[in-house]
């Protein structure tokens, strides 16, 4: 396409060059034709002029012969007269034919010349040759007739001169016009060449501009990436609350590929009465737009948590907002941890399942349900309630934690094993430990966020004993502590 655009003007120029050459060739041929025709005309004019001069000389030969014979009586004077006598009519005939071809309107003059010659023969030559009375005829008619004849021939010659001039003028004008056409064609060609050159230069400039534009876009992309990185970093650096009874830990791994600035986030907000809102989410796509959508979804979830106690209702509200915003698709889990009751309630929207780890039990995958946020209007989500035990940890993560090999079944297996290994060690930062278990020898193709929420086990005799006692007390008031073996998951669906 690029090459086509660049060679376009050259193609146009080539076509114009061919057209110009054709014009020049046609012009040249027409000039040649014109010149040869005018040469033919001029040759005929020349011949006609020779014939006219001959006609005059022959008449003068006749006249001189008769006059000489009349004066001297010498027979030799009659020789030119006799020679001219048969030639003159033929000469006049030839002249007549040529004048007809040349289209000169001098037929009357030629007719008069014939008539004068005939009259001269009748009135002068015949009487002089036949007797002495002839001398009077010579004086009476001779000079007069010869002068009239001379005038006739001159008139014919004038006609020839006029025609010659006309032919010359026409030829010259044609040649001039031809020159105009030729020069015009050459100028047009030169201008076209100039335009082609300019266009060519322009297209070169265009390519340069496009390169500059792509450099600008690269710079803009780099800037966008810095902004989205900064946004994401700002969100993630906001510290999770340090609470009594509930311990958060979190980690975030950016995608290993530079272009993949993701939209993963997590959130923890303390509510009242020992209740804590937690959320994790993932905006489809990457870049600044994803970061902005992420921020919007995140704020929507926090504000929904302040209005609704029920996670399903929170998600339904966030979905309505994102649908109204026409933002990107967002998957999320949000819920409430109640440190007094050791219970989690949560709802999911198109997101991979939370994992629950209880002391002495294998980690297990919790139920999910619900479509992602921001794709379908008026959706209902389900709240799942989990009654668990002190020391239980809820693990939330984004899809990068299970889709590193694009196989979520294998991913879940690896993740469950990583969670088990990480929590077995009693690590203070379980999220980081899980991350290290999975990505210690794998690279993260997508970005990954991991959030854990743990109910702190009361440690008797510790510095925090007082607080923990309170928690146990309040939890006891609720009477909801149940053995881990009988942990229950209750699911209810909110009205759309």
């Amino acid at each position, binding site marked *: 396409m690029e090459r086509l655009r660049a060679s376009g003007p050259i193609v146009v120029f080539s076509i114009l060059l061919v057209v110009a050459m054709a014009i020049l060739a046609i012009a040249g041929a027409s000039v040649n034709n014109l010149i040869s025709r005018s040469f033919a005309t001029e040759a005929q004019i020349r011949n006609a002029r020779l014939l006219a001069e001959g006609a005059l000389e022959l008449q003068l030969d006749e006249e001189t012969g008769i006059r000489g014979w009349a004066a001297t009586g010498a027979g030799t004077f009659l020789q030119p007269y006799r020679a001219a006598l048969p030639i003159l009519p033929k000469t006049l005939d030839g002249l007549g034919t040529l004048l007809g071809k040349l289209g000169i309107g001098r037929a009357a003059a030629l007719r008069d010349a014939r008539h004068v010659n005939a009259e001269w023969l009748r009135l002068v030559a015949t009487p002089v040759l036949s007797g002495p009375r002839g001398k009077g005829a010579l004086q009476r008619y001779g000079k007069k007739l010869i002068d009239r004849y001379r005038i006739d021939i001159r008139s014919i010659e004038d006609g020839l001169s006029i025609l010659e001039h006309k032919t010359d003028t026409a030829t010259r004008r044609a040649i001039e016009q031809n020159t105009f056409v030729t020069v015009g064609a050459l100028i047009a060609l030169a201008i076209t060449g100039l335009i082609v050159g300019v266009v060519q230069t322009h297209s070169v400039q265009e390519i340069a501009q496009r390169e500059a534009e792509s450099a600008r876009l690269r710079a803009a992309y780099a800037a966008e990436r810095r902004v989205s990185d900064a946004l994401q970093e700002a969100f993630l650096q906001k510290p999770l609350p340090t609470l009594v009874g509930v311990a958060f830990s979190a980690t975030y791994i950016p995608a290993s590929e530079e272009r993949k600035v993701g939209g993963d986030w997590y959130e923890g907000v303390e509510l009242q009465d020992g209740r804590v809102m937690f959320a994790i989410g993932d905006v489809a796509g990457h870049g600044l737009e994803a970061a902005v959508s992420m921020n919007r979804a995140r704020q929507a979830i926090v504000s929904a948590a302040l209005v609704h106690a029920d996670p399903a209702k929170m998600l339904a509200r966030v979905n309505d907002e994102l649908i109204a915003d026409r933002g990107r*698709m967002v998957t999320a889990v949000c819920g409430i941890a109640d440190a007094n009751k050791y219970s989690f309630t949560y709802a999911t929207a*198109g997101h991979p399942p939370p994992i629950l780890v209880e002391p002495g039990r294998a980690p297990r995958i919790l139920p999910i*349900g*619900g*479509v*992602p946020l921001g794709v*379908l209007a008026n959706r209902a989500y389900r709240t799942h309630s989990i009654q668990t035990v002190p020391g239980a940890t809820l693990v939330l993560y984004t899809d990068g934690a299970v889709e590193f090999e694009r*196989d979520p*079944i294998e991913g879940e297996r690896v993740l469950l094993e990583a969670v088990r290994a990480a929590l077995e060690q009693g690590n203070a930062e379980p999220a980081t430990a899980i991350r290290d278990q999975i990505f210690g020898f794998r690279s993260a193709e997508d970005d990954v966020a991991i959030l854990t929420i743990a109910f702190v086990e009361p440690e008797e005799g510790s510095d925090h004993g007082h607080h923990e006692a309170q928690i146990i007390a309040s939890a006891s008031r609720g009477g909801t502590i149940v053995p881990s073996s009988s942990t229950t998951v209750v699911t209810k669906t909110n009205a759309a």
Partner: protein
Amino acid sequence: MSSDSSVVVIALSGELDVARADEVARALALPGRGTPVLLDFSDVSYADSTVISALFSFSERASEANVRIAVLIVKPQLIRLLEYAGVGEAFPVFRERSAALTYLLGNG
């Protein structure tokens, strides 16, 4: 795209990610005259969030156009991924072609 009697079948294969987003967007076109559509993903093993997002918008358009659609998924990895995404809540997901066609051609 091919026609399975009076069902339009849109078949895709391989791993569908953002690099193939344009291809997926072109493929997910509604046929005219309300012909039911079977999205044949039996050879698809992966779909990233951009593709899942495109699936939802396709289901939305189909529902607006009153076109019945079904998705055929066979690969367990994709089944799990679409479980995450809650795709089964938005439109019928089948693991067998015959069941999907029966549903699409049914009167119900």
